[in-house]
């Protein structure tokens, strides 16, 4: 048996030093180049290539989850009942498909009903990709520049604000959720009009930061976008305060928010293609 020759560490050391230098150069270039720089373009290319893979993953895992759900309900198999079982499976699949279509129809009606009453122009999109790393809350949707999507467009789910687009390819776009630690949404408490910034937290929650200690904030208060910042129109529902407290050493209140949009089982979203200001949806203005 022929064993491979051991590698000389000194040769490998030269390789790794060279690669580390290149890594640092790439990092520096990434920060210094603009959005049209070569590394940004490379990322766009990779995301374009990855979008079909992500869509395939979404497509493949969805029925698998469904199959596991109903397969657990099946009884003990018998060979003489094979034909009947096949028919049963086909019927279950058919019913599940119809049920899925009905639920999707209801969700889309709710989404577009909200947009219609808000005088907003929007594009519906399907979620085709979920976060690929632990450090980001970014999803991919199946609409891109070909559908009029640009970066920094607000994205809504059925019940409220979801996030904003951060990168766009021709047929897909990435959406940073409001639960991402890098997100920030200018918002205010609907009742007291106290302003602050809704920020994602590393642990997964959402905080309403920079709210003055003098402002009135209590659990159950509704948070809406304030319209400042130029990305989110005023009055979009963000969520509801679940706790508000003050510590003597802090300049601001410690407020936690439950997002209105259900971020867990997200399947369809709406991208607002017109950032026309709305007149305080449900804000009483």
């Amino acid at each position, binding site marked *: *048996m*022929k*064993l*491979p020759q*051991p*590698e000389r*560490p000194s*040769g*490998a*050391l030269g*390789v*790794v030093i060279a*690669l*580390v230098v*290149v*890594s*640092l150069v*790439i*990092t*520096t270039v*990434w*920060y210094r180049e603009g959005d049209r720089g070569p*590394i940004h373009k*490379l*990322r766009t290319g*990779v*995301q374009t290539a*990855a979008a079909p*893979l*992500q869509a*395939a*993953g979404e497509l*493949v*895992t969805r029925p698998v989850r469904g199959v596991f759900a109903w397969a657990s309900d099946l009884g003990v198999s018998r060979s003489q009942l094979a034909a009947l079982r096949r028919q049963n499976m086909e019927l279950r699949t058919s019913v599940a498909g119809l049920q899925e279509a009905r639920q999707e129809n209801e969700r889309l009606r709710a989404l577009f009903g909200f947009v219609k009453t808000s005088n907003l122009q929007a594009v519906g999109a399907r979620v085709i*990709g*979920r*976060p*690929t*790393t*632990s*450090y*980001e*809350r*970014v999803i991919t949707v199946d609409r891109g520049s070909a559908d009029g999507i640009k970066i920094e467009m607000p994205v809504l789910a059925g019940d409220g604000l979801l996030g904003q687009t*951060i*990168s766009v390819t021709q047929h897909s776009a*990435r959406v*940073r959720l409001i639960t991402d*630690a*890098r997100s920030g949404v200018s918002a205010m408490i609907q009742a007291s009009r106290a302003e602050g910034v809704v920020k994602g*937290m*590393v*642990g*997964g929650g959402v905080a309403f930061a920079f709210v003055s200690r003098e402002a009135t904030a209590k659990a159950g208060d509704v948070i809406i976008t304030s319209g400042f910042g130029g990305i989110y129109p005023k009055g979009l529902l963000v969520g509801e305060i679940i706790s508000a407290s003050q510590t003597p050493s802090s300049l601001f209140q410690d407020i936690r928010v439950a997002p209105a949009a259900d971020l867990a089982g997200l399947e369809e979203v709406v991208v607002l293609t017109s950032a026309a200001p709305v007149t305080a949806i449900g804000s009483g203005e």
Partner: protein
Amino acid sequence: MSRILPTVGALLVAAVLQAALAPYLAIGQVVPNFLLLVVVTIALVEGPGPGAAVGFSAGLVFDLLGSGPVGPMLLVLTLTGYLAGLMHENMFAEGWLLPLTVLAIATLSAEVAYGLILVLLNVGGPFWSTFLTKMLPGAVYNTVLALLIFPWLARFLRRETSITTFQRLG
């Protein structure tokens, strides 16, 4: 050439799995890092030079797939591949403890280093919060997956030698 093709193949499969499957294997917000697992395995099997080169490639793919800055995982996986590869000569047949230890240390180190760089670049959160909610759970999850992947991938990468689970690789 016969050893390069399996390595490139493993890297490509890991990239596809990271984009298509990893998001659906997430536990809470902890997403497994298949690219890290492949880098560590290849480094243990092939040595520090190939480990660093594969780490560089995998890190670039990881950074480009995500939405954060390009560079942090590139640097981390390059160094992880190199350092894990230094243990290449010490993979003995006597038991599973050493490979397990190397895998655990490598995944924890990579997670901590990556999280630390993000904190320093001001794109992560506070360190301890990030450590407890991202780095540590991520390291544990990746180590568990590494135990499943390492023996099979090591055997695939070195088909010319009769490797059994956690047997001597060098």
